[in-house]
Every structure is written in C-alpha cells, then in structure tokens.
C-alpha cells in the first residue's frame, strides 16, 4: 500500500499549517500545550474561527456549510491541529449528531438543527449512558411516553461530557418497554431549557467537573424532535458508533504528547543529566515511539480504506483499544517525567490563573490530573473490554 501523501495532500497540509500558525491565539495554544482547562468561550471562539474558514464541519457536504473533506484530509487536519496545540473540536453536534441527521433525519430537521451547530448557537451533548446502563447500553431505562404531539421524558443520563455548557442533548430513550431491549429505543432531540431538565456536575479524580448527570422530570418534547422512526434508535446509535470514528485512534494527540514528552525529557535533570539520557526512561520513551510509528500506519491503512468508502467496522475497535492504551501510556510517562513536581494540585494554574505558583516546571501541574483524566479513554465510547468482545466476535468469529 502507498504510505506517501499525494502532492495535493501535502499542499493541503501546508495550507492547514499556515492557517493554524496565523489564527490560533497564542494564549489558547499555550493552555492546550500545558494541559490547562479551556473556558467555554475559548472553545466557542475556536469553533467560530474554523467556521469562518469553512473548516469546522469537515465531513459535511458543502451545501450545508461543510468542507466535504475525505477521510485522509480529515486525518491530516487532526494531525496538524494536534501538532499546533489547537483546542479539540467539540464533537457532539458536528461529528455525532450531524451524521445521524444526514442519514436518518428529515430535511426539515437538517435545516433546523445544522445551521445552529455551525454558528455555535446550539451546543450539543450526548445522552446515552445511564447509572444502570454503561457497557450494556441497550438496557437503558429513560422513558419517553407519547402524549398527543409530545413525548414526556422521565429518567436520568450520566457521564454527559461538557453538559454544563450544552443547551441541547440527543438522547436514547425507551419508547417501547415491552419490546426486546434493543428494539424499544428511540433517538430524541431535547432542548435543555425545557422545564424538568436538571444538570448536576460530577467532580472526577482530576478535580474537574467535565462530566454531568442530566435528570428528566416530566420533560415535554415535541414529537417532531424524534429522529427517524420510533423504536429504531438503536440502529442510529450503532451507526453513530461505527462512523466518523477515523480519529478514534487519536494518533494526532499521541504525536503531540510524544513531542511534549521529548521536550520535557530533554529539559528535566535527573541525577545530573537530562532525563532523556537515563537508560530506563529512554527505553520507555523509545518503546512508546516505536508503537506510535506502527500505530500511525495502522491508522493510515484503516483511514484510507474508509476514504475508499469501506466503512470501518471492527477496525475501529482495534484502533480504539491500541490508540487509547498508547495515549494513556504517554500520559503516564509525562507524569513520571514530572517527578516530585507532579504532586502539587494547583487548580488556579490549571484554570489559567496568573497568580498561581507552579512550584515546578510549567508542564508539571497538569501531569497527574492529565494522567488521571485519560483513564476515561479506555472506559467511554464502549469500554476497551466491549471493543475486545466485538473483535473476538466479528474479526475472530469466536
């Protein structure tokens, strides 16, 4: 297979790199580089910058304001954006809801919901997991009962990432409690300003409230907010889980983390010499770089297959498992590199405050929180155990 990029793809990369250099504010870039927490407006501003360029909705058709990039172009963008330490694009509206609307929504729904995703007026979050429905997502119990031209929703969602910023949530709800568990689920769009919706933050091990619980108490949702057919929601959810997952390996994130780690290893002194020259640390670093070299090609092989229209199936499970383990290992090495300076917990520094005394080098305060935060990678979006079960069943036929 061809592992080189075409001249057009290289020119595309150069254009992206130029744009990122010129348009990414330095303070935001530094926050991302140092693992600090971004504010809502910083994330929104970056979306607006990309949208003005026409690059926010990378895979959308042009007629809806998208860039219509193929999988390789999207991969190049992810690589360059990570390399530049750009904020990640919040995926819920752009990369998760929109593909479902393109495939299963009505034209009226597309006209209504796609423009505010681009403008930033709607910030979407994902209402999938529940306290009793994690890996076994199809056992979800949030109930939607049809009442005239509305659904009445009762129940609870959890692990809702960035739900504190969101004003809309797409939910999997149970509309037929008597059907087999996968067959009674519907895909419903809910305005979070509707009476009866409550959001409660969940503080995690890194000290940040990145995820939330969302409660629904007799929430009335117009029936026109149902996507596709009633009781077919599981099909749409599965579609969402297997498409648009070309970046699931997070190779761009790993590349950026490796670059940071090498810089830190070269500038951290251990026993009178740079940490990068310590044989044990150097071996760990080399090992993860070797894995990443192969991962980049594994990813490219699967991405180029997807670009030719072959939808990634079990490949996305493989990319997820290996990609998340690599990112976690890199975060563990950065924590290790920080040495004793990984210990202080400095929320003011992480929030971008000016007065916080970092106690050590600038990369150190986020090293432990970042390591803890990335434990989520092997849990969410279908835990790595679920992915392995899929691989065993689909790829191995066991």
């Amino acid at each position: 297979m061809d592992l080189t990029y075409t001249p057009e793809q290289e020119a595309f990369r150069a254009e992206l790199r130029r744009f990122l250099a010129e348009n990414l504010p330095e303070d935001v870039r530094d926050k991302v580089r140092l693992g600090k927490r971004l504010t809502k407006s910083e994330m929104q501003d970056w979306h607006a910058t990309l949208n003005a360029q026409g690059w926010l909705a990378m895979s959308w058709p042009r007629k809806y304001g998208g860039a219509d990039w193929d999988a390789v172009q999207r991969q190049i963008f992810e690589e360059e954006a990570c390399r530049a330490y750009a904020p990640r694009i919040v995926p819920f509206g752009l990369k998760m809801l929109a593909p479902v609307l393109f495939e299963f929504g009505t034209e009226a729904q597309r006209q209504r919901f796609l423009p505010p995703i681009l403008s930033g007026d709607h910030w979407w979050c994902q209402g999938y997991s529940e306290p009793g429905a994690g890996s076994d997502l199809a056992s979800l119990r949030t109930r939607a009962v049809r009442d005239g031209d509305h659904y009445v929703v009762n129940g609870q969602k959890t692990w809702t990432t960035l739900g504190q910023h969101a004003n809309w949530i797409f939910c999997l709800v149970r509309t037929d409690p008597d059907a087999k568990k996968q067959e009674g689920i519907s895909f419903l769009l809910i305005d979070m300003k509707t009476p009866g919706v409550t959001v409660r933050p969940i503080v995690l091990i890194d000290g940040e409230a990145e995820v939330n619980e969302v409660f629904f108490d007799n929430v009335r949702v117009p029936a026109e907010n149902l996507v596709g057919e009633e009781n077919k929601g599981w099909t749409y959810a599965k579609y969402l889980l297997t498409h648009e997952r070309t970046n699931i390996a997070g190779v761009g994130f790993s590349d950026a983390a490796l670059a940071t780690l090498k810089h830190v290893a070269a500038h951290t002194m251990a026993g009178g010499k740079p940490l990068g020259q310590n044989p044990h640390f150097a071996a760990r670093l080399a090992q993860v770089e070797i894995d990443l070299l192969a991962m980049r090609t594994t990813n490219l092989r699967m991405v180029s297959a997807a670009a030719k229209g072959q939808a990634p199936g079990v490949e996305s499970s493989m990319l997820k498992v290996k990609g998340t383990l690599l990112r976690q290992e890199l975060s563990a090495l950065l924590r290790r590199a920080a040495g004793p300076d990984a210990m202080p917990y400095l929320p003011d520094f992480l929030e971008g405050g000016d007065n916080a005394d970092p106690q050590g080098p600038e990369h150190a305060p986020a090293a432990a929180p970042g390591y803890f935060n990335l434990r989520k990678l092997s849990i969410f979006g279908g835990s790595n155990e679920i992915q392995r079960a899929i691989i065993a069943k689909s790829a191995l036929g066991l």
Partner: protein
Amino acid sequence: MLRDMLRRFLDDRYSHEARRQVLAEGHAFDMEVFGALAELGILGAVFAPEHGGYGGTGTDLMVVFEELGRAGVVEPFLGSAVLAGGLLAILDPDGQRDLIQQIINGEAIISLAHTEPQSRYDLTHVTARAQDQNGQVVLNGTKTHVQNGAQAGTLLVSAREAGGPFDADGISLFLVSGSSDGVGCIGYINVDGTSSARITLDAVPLAQGQRLGPPGQAIAALEAAHARATLALCAEALGAMEAAKTLTIDYLQERKQFGVPIGSFQALQHRLADMLIEIEQARSAVINLAGHMESDRLTRERHVSATKNLIGRVGALVAEECIQMHGGIGMTDEYALSHHVRRLTMVDHIFGDTDHHLERFIALSGTSDAIGKDDDARQ
C-alpha cells in the same frame, strides 16, 4: 493488637465522607483525629523504647502504616514522626528527647526540609548553604515538597557546609523554628489530599546547637531515616491496594450488566486474579523491607530499592485496573476508590520512583561497573 485497635478506630472515625469533608473545608488534616490517634499511642509505636516510644521496629511501622493506608489517612505521621522524628532519634536522641516526646504525644509536628527544586529523587543533591555572612552563620536556599511544612512548628533543614551539589559529604541538618526570621513558607495541597510546602530560607540566622550531629556528616542518617520512611510509605501503599481491591471485588459482585454481575465475566475474573497475585508480592516485598531495617547499609538499601520499585509497579497496576474494572464510577471524586488511586499513584513520586529505584538496585547490586562507580562516587 495494635492493628486491631487502629483498624477499629479508623473504621469508626475515619470514613471516606469525613475525610472528604475535612479536605473540602480547606484543612490539611483533622487536628482532633490526629490528637485521638496520638492518644491511642500510634505515634509511640513508631519510636523505639530508648527514644520514649514502645515500638520502632520495621514490623511496627508496617502494621501502623498499612492501616493508615487502608483508611487513606492524611494526618502527619509519615513526614513528621517517621522521617523528621526518625532523624532526631538517630542524630541526637538525648538532646532532642523532649521534642521527640512532644511528637509522640501529638503536641509537635516537625518537617524535614530537604528536597530542592532540582534534586528530584537524589538524596545527596543539596545546594542550600549554611555559611558565614557578616560574622553570623546563616542558611540560604529553597526547599520544596516539604511534607506538612506549613503545619510544622519546627523544620529540620538540610544545608551544605562543604562540597558541590551531588557530594555526599558536606551536608548538615539544622533545627529551625518555622517562625524564624528569613523563613518563607507557601503551603499547598497535593493531588492525593496530603499537604506540602515550599520553604524559602533567606539568611536565616543560626545559633550554636541548632546543628544535629557533626558538621557535614548527615547523609548516613538521611539515608537511614529515608529507609524507614520508605518502608512506612510502601506499607501505606499496601493498605491502599487492599482497600482498592476490596472495593473492586464488592463492585464486581454487585454491579450488573447484561443481566449478570460483571464479576461473572472471565475476562474480569482473570484480571482480578492477576492483581491479587501482585498484591501478595507487594506484601512480601514490604515484609522483606521491614525485616531488614537493622541490616548493614548495603543489604538494607538494596531492599529499600527492591521494595520501592515493586510497590511502584504494583501500585500502578492496582490503580489502573481497579478504575478500569469499575468504569466511570471509579473515576468520581465522590467514591473512595479514586482517592486510594490518587495516593497509590503519588506514592511513586515520593522517595524515588520505580525507575530511580531500579537503577539504584542495579548499582547497589554491583552488576554494572559503570553505574556502580558513579554511585560510589556519590555516596
């Protein structure tokens, strides 16, 4: 008996919710609980009878700290009693009898101010200096990661009277009041809920009698005290592993997905079984170290590095596996597991990590001439 009493007390008084509450209110620890533990005699168990305690053996340290680790205790036992108190007992047991007694009674908290911004895990890396300045001997330097430094009334400060940054010779220890002129202190909370401080020393005047032991000869005592403190820390990690393991076993039995307890999945059973094997290895490593506290320096230090390396590896395994087997709930601040995981993870950042101790174990074992010479040069 000590173990049972301590466990009963902590079960009763040191719930996860109570601990969280104290930390949420911005306290470094619960003074009342600390006082009650002192009354129970926990601090006395850390010191030998000739120093006013009733314990002080490796086994005593192991028993006490395993229980403290099981409950996630953040009160100042390790830094104050074992490390700084241990140095008092080694260097000047008679002269410091009163201060040691105050530590045992829970009336005094003292901190060793030794680590510096550039020293990472090297005990010999000291650049703070004690020197004559305008006819007065003064201390200058910066110390960091000083355990409970902001709560300590008395600091035990290391400083050079001779030599360069990595020289083993030339380091002395000085007793300095935390309120002395020229002592600056910035306290902070650590990721695991413990507290530390950065201490600045700006021409802090020293009087006769503040130096413990002969000038420039403190490294052997520092190493011996760190051996005891490393044992205590490893035992604490063992307790945290046991607590994390228990929570995980319970959760696997109680959490149902796909209509069955997730503990019925063989994939998880095998991982838990592997973890159990590794925790037993960790216990053996702590027992090994506890049994070699009184051995010759080389034997003791080989066990220090062996145990700390193994605890670092198993600690990471237990931390990561327990979270993964729990799923999202294991990552929440509300749930005790995430606090054990934080401590287990941070243990590898105190007194040397797995890599540091692997390298040191190799050097002490003399299997690598190059590293061996390098190490000899630093001792």
